[in-house]
């Protein structure tokens, strides 16, 4: 394992080194020490490497990740895994706002809680939060799966498109055009897989599923007072 001291060697050196890695190199395991809340750690990676961050990070950790597995042994600031395309990001602690925003693919696991707007505008990413999520989560979520083992805050799934939302605990309120939907076998199977990959022992049968009522897909004068 290669050790990179972020405080001593700087952000540019870290990201340029990680972005240069390919599967053909033998430098597939990295640890980042002294992150000290720095922003944009391990962004733009595009190789099947493993990066362990020993501490907490600032904004946009793992932004636009492709293929890499990033493990944060701490909490993360806003926008972790934003626009992730593939790969895995695991956060041992809590996540601030916009976790997994606009992500197209891959898996984001938050073992603590996630703040507001978790999964905002998600486009195919899978997100599993062991704890609770804040308000306006999955706002305008287009595709992918958001799994919440705890509770969800206000306005879950507002203006939702085709993402699937699974919540085990309570939902403070549903957003506009978001409704509870039937849990079928395909959803149970999907949840089983995601929970296992996220190392959660929650049971799929304990979750409720929420999705789009599809009433806002095309303009209707009689719908415009629901905002």
């Amino acid at each position, binding site marked *: 394992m290669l050790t990179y001291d972020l405080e001593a060697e700087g*952000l*540019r050196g870290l*990201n*340029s080194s990680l*972005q240069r890695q390919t599967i053909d190199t033998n430098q597939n395991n990295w640890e980042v020490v002294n992150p000290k809340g720095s*922003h*944009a750690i391990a*962004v*733009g990676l*595009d190789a099947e490497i493993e990066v362990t961050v020993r501490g907490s990070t*600032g*904004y*946009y950790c793992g*932004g*636009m990740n*492709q293929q890499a597995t990033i493990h944060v042994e701490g909490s993360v600031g*806003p*926008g972790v895994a*934003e*626009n992730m*395309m593939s790969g895995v990001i695991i956060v041992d602690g809590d996540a601030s*706002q*916009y976790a997994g*925003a*606009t992500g*197209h693919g891959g898996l984001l696991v938050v073992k603590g809680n996630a703040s507001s*707007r978790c999964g*905002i*505008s998600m*486009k*195919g990413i899978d997100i599993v939060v062991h704890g609770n999520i804040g308000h306006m989560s999955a*706002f*305008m979520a*287009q*595709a992918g799966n958001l799994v919440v083992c705890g509770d969800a805050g206000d306005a879950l799934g507002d203006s939702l*498109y*085709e993402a699937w939302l699974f919540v085990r605990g309570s939902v403070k309120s549903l957003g506009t055009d978001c409704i509870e939907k039937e849990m079928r076998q395909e959803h149970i199977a999907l949840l089983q897989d995601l929970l296992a990959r996220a190392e959660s022992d929650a049971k799929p049968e304990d979750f409720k599923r929420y999705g789009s009522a599809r009433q806002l*897909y*095309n*303009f209707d*004068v*009689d719908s415009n007072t629901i905002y």
Partner: protein
Amino acid sequence: MDSKIPRTVPIQSATFTKEVNAEIRRAAATGIYDIRGGGAKRRVPHFDDLLFLGASVSRYPLEGYRERCNTSVTLGTRFAKNPIKLDIPITIAGMSFGALSGQAKEALGRGASSAGTSTTTGDGGMTPEERDHSTKLVYQYLPSRYGMNPNDLRKADAIEVVVGQGAKPGGGGMLLGQKISDRVAHMRTLPKGIDQRSACRHPDWTGPDDLEIKLLELREITNWEVPIYVKISGTRPYFDTALAVKAGADVVVLDGMQGGTAATQDVFIEHVGIPTLAAIRPAVGALQDLGVHREVQLIVSGGVRNGADVAKAMALGADAVAIGTAALIALGDNDPKWEAEYQNLGSTAGAYDDWHEGLDPAGITTQDPELAARLDPIDAARRLRNYLKVMTLEAQTIARACGHNDLCNLEPEDLCALTVEAAAMAQVPLAGTEWYPGKPGTGY
């Protein structure tokens, strides 16, 4: 009634005009606001309200056809390893595949490239055709993040973080179901045929301090190689420009209310934002106050139509301009040769702006394969190239007449204003005077 008694002549209201009344009736019948494309159509103070003074005894001109007048401009010199060098200071503004047909996007790329300038993606991502046909392509980074991915980001020659658009400051994109074809839906990860109304705010940052960190992330992902533009609408140009600079922008793109859009509410286009003319000087003032005028370049858009407009924008302090609507007209938009079809759509050539319906007879603002096939990308590109060349020649003509050997040397002192309003906005003297409203030291 005695027919010999004079009667009051019917008087049409200046407030409730025929157009206003028609819109009231349309709204009452449909329950939906008017949606259209393009920019503000109302008369607002504009570049036409300015004149160049030209050379005289106090200045001497350059020979029109013999003495060189530079038109090139380099954008992104502040932080990027690879600034963009353009042969002409006229760029093509962001317009999406989805709003425009693939043929139109290809034509914009081909035309801009052959004229030595850049073109720009839009809300919907980058298409291979667009990349392949554009020598210099600016990749827009928008609130929706439709089609956004790091691979395309790294293919771009510059990144434009869109905060605002002159046609709809504070509003998000709109693409109605008629244009959400299979390909457009796939690129945007949306169900086919929905009315797409995208977010007005970026999903993962909210203010200028966040924006600074977002720009850091984008630079880290792209190895600090390409310039990052920040596009703002003409609303509070002094503060927005200053904050964009503070956040780390290489280039500020300033879009006034005449700047076009693919589709939004007419009330938004006509009633939100300020004219391009009014926005330039405050933006330039912010750059000057921060000591970065020319280090951070300013691109101005919104109603730029000819070389005079280019020269006037640059004289007021811009480094370059961007054109959208004018470029579409050069490609063939609103061409009178389609008049019969415009009439069938309830419009007329020159006024057709229902771009959101996807029925454009010119094949430009459509996703209908048969209509789109009407536009030959190579012919259309040639027209755009010609138009860009003409604009450049016109701007050079004016610059030489004012005694400048570089378009960037045009300055406010070359200008005067025809109206008090334009004088106040452009901060140049009313023609024949030394005065403009708010001139320092005049007391009023």
